[in-house]
């Protein structure tokens, strides 16, 4: 114990050593088990597929070339379109919700808690709950049949609509939270000033509230867009096998198809699209407050 004590006291007199000692284990872990694996994926994406599903060395661009096939480009296009639709829907639904929470007074904390809970509830369980609701003999159809709204059960599950609904249901809180944060920070005296100066409610919203909450909107859009782009569970469970997405394509290459190099190449293309989204976010974020002021 006294040895450890001396060591700690010694470290405290050498701040650079102390910083290195504090950072070392954690950054090493991230390096070994986050960054190195990504590099391994990159390396695999240029290798040749082996006979039994493994890889053999050598350098080839065939997997990236294969992705240019209209079939796979269609998968990418469909995935991006789905992620964009999901983001737009989350924004349209999430903005009014965030706005209400920000002005909910004493209910604010409870409402925030209710927004956060789904985020940390198992995504799998929530998706399964949707299956339970939407399948032919599920809860929604049972209610509709009992009320006499429909005569035949509706086909709700395993449709593109189900996948989109599942994604919006899953990621809505990620949109609401950052918008809420930026609305919360908004200085109410600005709105009062505008009112005194004769701006109508709609004008106050368009010219003050919306521009000032733009950073939250942009952050929320990125938080929703990225996981929607890489979604694998939702298209897999709610879309059935019909709707191939980039996420399910990657999973297939590592599961049934056992084509690791092609799966790696697709993963890297996915990472590239995400990177473009992040860069676009950073540019927008740096510009957003300027517009608000102008």
């Amino acid at each position, binding site marked *: 114990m006294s040895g450890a004590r001396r060591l700690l006291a010694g470290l405290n007199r050498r701040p650079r050593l102390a910083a290195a000692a*504090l*950072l070392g284990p954690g950054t090493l872990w991230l390096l070994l088990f986050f960054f190195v694996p990504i590099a391994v994926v990159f390396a695999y994406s240029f290798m040749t597929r082996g006979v039994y599903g493994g890889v053999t060395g050598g350098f080839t661009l065939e997997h990236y070339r294969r992705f240019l096939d209209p079939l796979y480009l269609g998968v990418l296009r469909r995935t991006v379109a789905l992620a964009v639709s999901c983001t737009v829907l989350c924004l349209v639904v999430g903005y009014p919700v965030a706005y209400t929470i920000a002005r909910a007074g004493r209910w604010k904390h409870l409402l925030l808690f209710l927004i956060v809970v789904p985020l940390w509830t198992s995504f799998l369980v929530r998706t399964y*709950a949707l299956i*339970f609701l939407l399948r032919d003999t599920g809860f929604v159809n049972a209610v509709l049949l009992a009320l006499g709204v429909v005569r035949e059960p509706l086909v709700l599950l395993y449709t593109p609509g189900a996948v989109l609904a599942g994604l919006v249901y899953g990621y809505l809180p990620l949109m609401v939270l950052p918008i809420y944060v930026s609305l919360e920070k908004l200085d109410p005296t600005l709105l009062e000033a505008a009112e005194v100066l004769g701006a109508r409610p709609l004008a106050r919203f368009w010219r003050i509230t919306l521009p000032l909450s733009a950073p939250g909107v942009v952050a929320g859009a990125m938080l929703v867009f990225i996981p929607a782009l890489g979604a694998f569970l939702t298209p897999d469970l709610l879309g059935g096998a019909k709707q191939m997405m980039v996420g399910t394509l990657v999973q297939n290459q*590592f599961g049934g198809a056992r084509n690791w190099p092609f799966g790696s190449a697709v*993963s890297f293309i996915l990472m590239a699209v995400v990177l473009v989204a992040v860069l676009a976010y950073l540019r927008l974020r740096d510009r957003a407050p300027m517009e608000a002021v102008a």
Partner: protein
Amino acid sequence: MRRLPRSLVAFTALCFVLLHLPVLVLAVFSLNRSRFSVQWTGFTLEWYRRLLERQDILAALRVSLTVGAVSTLVATVLGTMIALALARHRFRGRTLLEGLLYLPIVTPEIVVGISLLLLFATLHMALGISTIVVAHVAFSVSFVTVVVRARLEGMDRTLEEAALTLGADEVATFRRVTLPLLSPGILAGALLAFTMSIDDFVITFFVSGPGSTTLPVLIYSMARRTIEPTINAVSTVLVVVTTVLIFFFDRLTRGRGPREGTL
């Protein structure tokens, strides 16, 4: 404060209902006697009793708890150390490190999962509990760092300075002043790491092997095959546990801005 338009309140209420209804319905029907239909045929705890008889579910629960406990411990220690370094030390590459810490948070889960799978395959490491722990630590360290750091930023440093002035050495100051002040942040980070660990499906799916099935991976394979009330029951247990954990996380981080509390 101006009153909100009624239509806005109604819309928000509808969204909250839709956000929570599916899981609530799932939980209610875990108490339904009928095995196949969604007709309510009476209250029963039969499906929960059956959980205790299912060896596969109990084994998965053991794996989930073991992985959760070990990975939380490691991630909390490592994440707290990084947070301390970032908050208290100036060093070269600090901004770069901060940026890199956010990378695991924005990388699609499926990419993290397959990249670890490829690493373990390349190293000829057998997939099992240890590979799951390694993966869970890798994705939760960043989150712990963010939470603990938020607490550190809000901490009053004069207390530590006072302790040092009054003759306590650095070690005593750290143990008797810094650590107790920091403990709610550390506990919140640990709760978050544990919640993420027992909930994670996508990454675990790729790095778990035969005999190391976690609860979410088991639920997935069950849900793909059939719909049965035991899935509802085990899902409900998982949801209740995480909700309680998040409730405590919320209590620990409350009152210091919405950002930290909600992450």
